């Protein structure tokens, strides 16, 4: 497994005529488990935390490394190792059909068109997406789209897969489909979710609350902690 290290990470965004808004503060963790879940309320900083792992955003302070590679300094190398799947697959599938999107992922690796097509077919077959590969991505169900987005990311064989709330837009059937697909992957997976059942599948679960890691440990304990946190009266109330 890869070693993902966050050291003293702080992320703040400037706000006009106001003090900067703190998104994450004082985050430190070393992630080496195969399945790491991140749970927390909306706006708690989960998505920001995940975007740090792929270098999509840079920390305001502190460092984030993947196998020693700094996500800011070595962004390109990090992105070759860390694949990212967004909540809404339509944001991610930039080509009209799944096959074209998988081939787009492979363009940098496979310049030969025939070899690229064969490699794309192999990826699509692996996820049983062959029959859907030439349909418009708009004609696919939510689960099929999410699997297609997953296939497009996995086509380049990343070591780490980061998924930002992958099941949020899915119905129960598609959620189960995604869950089974993720369970069969060899990659190290870091995912955020509101689906506490999915969080229980992890080896380790972080609870993020107001930009800080409020709990870090076994999934069952993390879910119990999170439930208690959500039941407690909020400070704003």
């Amino acid at each position, binding site marked *: 497994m890869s070693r993902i290290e966050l050291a003293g990470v702080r992320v703040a965004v400037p706000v006009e005529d106001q003090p900067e808004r703190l998104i994450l503060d004082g985050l430190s963790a070393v992630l080496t488990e195969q399945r790491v879940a991140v749970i927390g309320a909306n706006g708690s900083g989960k998505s920001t935390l995940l975007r740090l792992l792929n270098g*999509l955003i840079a920390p305001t302070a502190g460092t984030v490394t993947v196998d020693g590679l700094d996500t800011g300094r070595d962004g*390109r190398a990090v992105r070759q190792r860390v694949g990212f799947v967004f909540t809404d697959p339509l944001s991610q599938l930039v080509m009209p059909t799944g096959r074209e999107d998988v081939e787009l992922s492979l363009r*940098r690796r496979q310049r030969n068109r025939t070899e690229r097509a064969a490699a794309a077919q192999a990826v699509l077959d692996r996820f049983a997406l062959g029959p859907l590969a030439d349909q418009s991505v708009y004609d696919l169900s939510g689960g099929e789209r999410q699997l297609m987005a997953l296939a497009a990311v996995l086509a380049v064989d990343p070591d780490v897969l980061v998924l930002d709330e992958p099941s949020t837009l899915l119905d129960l059937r598609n959620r189960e489909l995604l869950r089974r697909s993720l369970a069969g992957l060899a990659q190290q997976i870091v995912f955020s979710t509101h689906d506490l059942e999915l969080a229980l599948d992890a080896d380790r679960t972080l609870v993020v609350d107001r930009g800080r890691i409020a709990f870090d440990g076994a999934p069952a304990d993390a879910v119990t902690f999170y439930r208690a946190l959500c039941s407690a009266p909020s400070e704003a109330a």
Partner: protein
Amino acid sequence: MGGRPSHGVLAGYVAGNSWLHRAPLWAKFLGVVAAGAASFVLLDWRVSATALGVVLLAWLSAGLGWRRLAASARLLAPLCLVLGAFQWWQLGPATAARIVLNLALCFVAAGLLTATVPLRTLLDAVARLARPFRRLGANPERFALAIAIMLRSIPVIAGAFDEVGEAARARGLERDVRARTVPVVLSAVAYARRTGEALAARGLGDGDDDHA
């Protein structure tokens, strides 16, 4: 902008095996270039109308159907109307007709290309065509990717016009220009941001790698 994109002329590839689908890519590229050049060369509206008739015939003979044409006509109509009215006022009806017809000609010719060539084939072709620019520091793959994203964005943004139009109608604001345009602009910006983020996450915006 999460809805279905518009099914206009530039809505993407239509699977088929017509003579136009089988025609070589260079010939189709040449056709699009010729249609673009027509704006400068064709100075008689009757010739422009004939040229448009020819590409429309090609469109129908390739089995691409009326529906896409109709959807595009609906989208193009306001632009043609404004442009035509202005040119009529400035230069007279013959020039106005010629300009509008030439615009439609370019649009349908480009549609013939995108409807009969899969995007991945277009990408390869554009990357090949852009190879000489490598000497000037340009990356042919980025060139191709930019074209692909542009082609993909046209139907998505056109679809946003439809969606926002429906929403405005539902609120009884169908005549409010602001209600029909501002959300489209905001959606387009959000779409661009999401697409950029998705490309960056997949490393597609990064520089060329070892395989280049």
